[in-house]
């Protein structure tokens, strides 16, 4: 069969194009809908999921306080992680071999031990150093009062995160063309100015996406602090099901809240990435802009996109 045979058509004939059809997409879509439908029906009707209990505790005050603690931990630990990470990344790339080696050692140590073990170490610091003086005369702190469970959680998660984040920041710095550093240097900008004004802003494009990933990861990793009896989201649910034995519904409550927050973070990350892609490429419209365009309202928004 020769598809390519040319059929004589008068030059002024209007020809219509027929787009390709995708029957397989429709078929698989349909199949997936059926499977999801069955699954949802099963989950909704299985009484052991205890949806009434889930809904009740989803709005519980102690769960909400647990969520706040989880969010607080996430924000503090990420802040510590990011600040230390920038310092560590710059140290890793320093010309000073002492500083470079220190940063390398830090990253190896914290990346090389389980974060759960690190948390337990900080929690039990008083066993190693009952009194903390930082080697200074007059400073005399009791380790047991200083290292509260929350403090141990912040130290353990924050210092561990710094090690991971520093590798991300380092990759970002290395992704910036060396010509940028040379041009900045040739203009007489100092190393610090070059880093702050020229290199880091451009590195953000590479740093932001994995940082969003790390933040979402951190939110979930904070669940580990339940072993230190910090009243986070998971531990608050555990306390409740220890009393009423509604284990599964309360684990669902915790999971739902984790899912809600990670979804919000995901949306935030999307817009943050767009912000740092400026000047690099033309951006596709956001889902919201596409929706508006589809609905046909906000003609002014539409025009501004072109």
């Amino acid at each position, binding site marked *: 069969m020769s598809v390519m045979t040319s059929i004589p058509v008068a030059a002024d004939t209007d020809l219509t194009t027929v787009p390709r059809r995708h029957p397989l997409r429709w078929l698989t879509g349909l199949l997936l809908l059926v499977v999801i439908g069955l699954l949802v029906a099963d989950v909704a009707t299985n009484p052991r999921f205890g949806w009434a209990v889930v809904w009740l505790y989803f709005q519980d005050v102690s769960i909400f306080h647990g969520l706040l603690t989880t969010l607080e931990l996430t924000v503090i630990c990420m802040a510590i992680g990011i600040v230390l990470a920038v310092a560590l990344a710059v140290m890793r790339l320093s010309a000073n071999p002492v500083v470079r080696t220190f940063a390398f050692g830090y990253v190896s140590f914290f990346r090389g031990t389980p974060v759960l073990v690190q948390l337990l170490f900080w929690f039990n610091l008083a066993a190693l150093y009952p009194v903390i003086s930082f080697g200074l005369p007059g400073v005399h702190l009791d380790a047991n009062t200083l290292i509260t469970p929350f403090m141990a959680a912040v130290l353990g998660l924050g210092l561990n995160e710094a090690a991971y984040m520093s590798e991300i920041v380092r990759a970002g710095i290395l992704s910036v063309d060396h*010509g*940028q550093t040379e*041009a900045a*240097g*040739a*203009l*007489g900008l100092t190393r610090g100015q070059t880093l702050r004004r020229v290199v880091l802003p451009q590195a953000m494009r590479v740093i932001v996406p994995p940082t969003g990933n790390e933040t979402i990861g951190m939110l979930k990793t904070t669940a580990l602090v339940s072993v230190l009896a910090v009243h986070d989201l998971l531990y608050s649910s555990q306390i409740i099901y220890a009393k009423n034995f509604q284990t599964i519904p309360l684990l669902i409550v915790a999971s739902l809240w984790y899912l809600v927050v990670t979804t919000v973070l995901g949306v935030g990350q999307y817009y943050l990435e767009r912000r740092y892609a400026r000047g690099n490429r033309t951006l596709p419209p956001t889902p919201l802009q596409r929706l508006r365009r589809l609905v046909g309202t906000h003609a002014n928004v539409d025009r501004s996109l072109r």
Partner: protein
Amino acid sequence: MTITVNSRTTATAPSPAMVRAVGVRKSFGSNEVLQGIDLTVEQGEVVCLIGPSGSGKSTFLRCINHLERTDGGQLWVAGAPVGYELRGTRLHELKDRDVCRQRTGVGMVFQHFNLFPHMTVLENLMEAPVRALRQPKARVRERALGLLEKVGLAEKASAYPRSLSGGQQQRVAIARALCMEPRLMLFDEPTSALDPELVGDVLAVMRDLAASGMTMVVVTHEIGFARDVADRVAFFDGGRIVEIGPPAQVLGNPEHPRTREFLAAVR
């Protein structure tokens, strides 16, 4: 690293030459890319460095701005040793901050422009004078807009570099270097990365600059530009200056067979 300064040199230290290189050497590993460069560039002079790639001309240019460290010989810019401070008869290596201060007097234009992509054209021009020289913003802005006018890009002040053509970007890069009010301008193959029809605009800007009396050292493959604008042309080959003199001599009637061979290949 050996740098020798004899006492006679110190006695006559503040030399009027803008650039004075005496036996400058530089190696990358075991590859000696500069094998003793002697070159003096007087104030207001335009010197073009030509030669095959790998002959050391770009490396030498980068040494003048201390983007590369020299391994031997002496290199002076405006009477000061590049990257060092002269105390008595000893050269003390400068701290980063002092190297930066030294560089503020020397403008450099790169083959690939190296504009800052996250800043507008105007911000590109204003960054270094405001940050490195700590000059007031209003004054710098005025000067920057004047320079953009001069290179024919006044209407692009608020554009981002990526939206400009290569030729426009390179003219912005020249304006950015000039905004520091340097006494010496270095050009590292400024037109090599440009489409042929965009080369003319950039060369025109460089011609104007040369006519205004700026001291310029230009690494270039544009033989026509070198013939018209340069006061002297230096032909580099194998890490040495093989031949140097007025363009009419080096380009029109070269003595050295290597120069003749190169010019025949370039034409």
